């Protein structure tokens, strides 16, 4: 219904703008098709149309972007790449190496992106020194969510160390509450794992292990301790967790069946949609330890022919990083703006905390890419690590074995 309304709007824009010579054209491949996401991308469509562009929507849902990537592969191989594609992390550089990405440095420099984006996030948007992608938002991954009533009635404060978390969890288990709501899917296991790893290895150790793939760190005693903590956490989830979707785990926290969930800030959307108030009904805090794990969605621009399409790319890039879109989109999506000079007045307390932490961690060097969400490593390497993490979490493998397998799996992933 909404979509057809936008189609109508863009048709009108098309008619009224037909006098312009190179009318901006953009065919946009993305997988934002569910509720809040579709609403968020509609905002971009609207802005694009308002600026005289013609947007051709190419949503490909399924498999957390797998289906869209398959469609992209087919389009690139047939020599007919979409104008802009939702891509993130090292996958941007991976496509760049295939020689199919366009250079949007002229827009980035004119708009002064380097001054408004945190340095480590800007790094993801560059290929060989030139800008090739535009960031949309920043999701924080290392969040711990809690049911405020459950914590209060059991006399528990938000944990600030993993030992505190373990103590709290044992108390909750004794009281008959499921301490940790978790869904046993590989990516969720990996999400918990990287939060634990950040807490135990610290920011520097995390960078060494999951960005540089430093073998000494991957096989260190600290990494054994990370797996030990994962084994402890395994005892805090209910027996029924296998294969559960993350939003069902969030619902368990919401209705008081479980106390905590470790999940990125898309979980906030679930709480908000159910009419819960942050700080009153549910609590948000960063997981124990210092640092900030980000998951940044972005659009990469592909090499295309035709002035109208190039104009479309430039307009799209300008709008995506523009302050108004960054604000409206992120209010819908539950994330925070990637640029640091956007007014945050309309955002909730969790988003404010996230933005403040991003600023602080960017300054002290602990603003780190999430490995579990494909920001730190390429697919083959992060997949290899996830295989070990999920195999360890779902069996009785010892931590020492897991660490040995981790190093072997990483070495075998090239």
């Amino acid at each position: 219904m909404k979509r057809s309304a936008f189609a109508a709007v863009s048709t009108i824009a098309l008619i009224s703008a037909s006098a312009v010579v190179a009318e901006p054209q953009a065919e946009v491949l993305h997988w934002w098709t569910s509720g809040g996401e579709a609403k968020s991308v509609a905002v971009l469509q609207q802005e694009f149309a308002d600026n005289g562009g013609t947007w051709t929507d190419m949503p490909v849902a399924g498999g957390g972007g797998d289906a869209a990537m398959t469609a992209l592969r087919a389009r690139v191989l047939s020599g007919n790449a979409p104008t802009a594609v939702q891509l993130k992390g090292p996958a941007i550089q991976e496509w760049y190496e295939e020689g199919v990405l366009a250079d949007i440095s002229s827009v980035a420099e004119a708009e002064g992106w380097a001054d408004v984006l945190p340095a480590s996030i800007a790094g993801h948007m560059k290929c060989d020194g030139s800008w090739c992608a535009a960031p949309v938002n920043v999701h924080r991954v290392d969040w711990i969510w809690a049911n405020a009533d459950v914590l209060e009635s059991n006399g528990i404060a938000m944990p600030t160390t993993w030992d505190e978390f373990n103590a709290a969890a044992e108390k909750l288990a004794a009281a008959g509450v499921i301490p940790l709501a978790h869904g046993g899917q590989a990516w969720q296991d990996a999400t918990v794992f990287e939060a634990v790893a950040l807490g135990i290895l610290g920011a520097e150790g995390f960078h060494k292990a999951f960005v540089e793939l430093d073998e000494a760190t991957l096989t260190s005693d600290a990494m054994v301790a990370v797996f030990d903590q994962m084994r402890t956490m395994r005892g805090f989830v209910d027996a029924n967790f296998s294969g559960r979707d993350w939003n069902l785990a969030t619902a368990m926290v919401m209705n008081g069946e479980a106390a905590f969930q470790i999940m990125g800030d898309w979980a906030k959307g679930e709480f908000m949609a159910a009419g819960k108030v942050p700080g009153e009904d549910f609590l948000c805090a960063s997981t124990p330890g210092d640092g900030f794990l980000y998951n940044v969605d972005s659009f990469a621009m592909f090499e295309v022919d035709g002035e109208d399409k190039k104009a479309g790319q430039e307009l799209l890039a300008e709008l995506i990083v523009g302050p108004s879109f960054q604000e409206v989109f992120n209010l819908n999506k539950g994330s925070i703006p990637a640029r640091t000079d956007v007014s945050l007045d309309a955002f909730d307390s969790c988003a404010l905390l996230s933005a403040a932490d991003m600023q602080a961690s960017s300054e002290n060097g602990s603003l780190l890419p999430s490995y579990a969400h494909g920001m730190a490593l390429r697919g083959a390497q992060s997949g290899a690590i996830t295989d070990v993490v999920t195999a360890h979490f779902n069996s009785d493998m010892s931590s020492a074995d897991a660490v040995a397998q981790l190093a072997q799996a990483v070495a075998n992933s090239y």
Partner: protein
Amino acid sequence: MSEWLENHLPKMVLAPSFIAVLVFVYGFIGWTAWVSLTRSKLLPRYEIHGFIQYDRLFASPRWDTAMNNLFIFGALFIVIAMVLGLLLAIMLDQKIRTEGVIRTIYLYPMALSMIVTGTAWKWILNPGLGIEATVRGWGFENFSFDWVVNPDFAIYTIVLAAVWQSSGFVMALFLAGLRSVDGEIIKAAQVDGIPTWRIYTAIIIPSMAPIFLSAFIVLAHLAIKSFDLVIALTGGGPGYATDLPATYMYAMAFSRGDIGQAASSAMIMMLVVFAIVVPYLYSELRAKTDG
């Protein structure tokens, strides 16, 4: 002219499908074999790098699990489905009154897609929703049936669902086989006072050998290409405990951008199929030339 047409028409009619098969089956098998020898990542590349992808494949514990699962799943699925199918067929063959109705009931699971079967069994087996919760609700507090969340037993739930889906179809195959056995021989045996179980084991079942072979081939290829059932029932989990070669290949090709690795796993899957189908074809062809 018309004579020429008469001679060449069959070839002309067959040519398009022949060419299509040549390109889309054998051509792409060749292409996959080529890619499996390269270091292709996101997009296929064509510089040969030897057997690096196969080395990686055999060093991967996840591939080990997938192959083990294939053998456990394949063996149990084929044997149980055939035994159950045969028993059902023999029982149905006792000239019972409601045969039509019962046969339809047993055949019905075959009409469902594996996705539906997998989803239904996922709920039935889920300890918090299905059998375990129900039996506990009846008062048996210690009853436990958590195979689907237990990494050591999860693969057997896949066998369970697959057998449920396919044994009716095997029954139909066997029933047709039973009916095709010459009634005269059976009557002669009955006149001689041979017990019924002996008639089955010594006369009827041996004469159904070709049906066994057909059922085996159908079930074996179902087992090897099994994908949707695993995705719907366990999603490959817990961990990757129920991964099969097909789900491994999918993960490598479409989630991880590791096309070379996916191609090498596809080649191994094909070799497994060949190992089963080639002896079958060989025996078929030999039987033809003998006849």
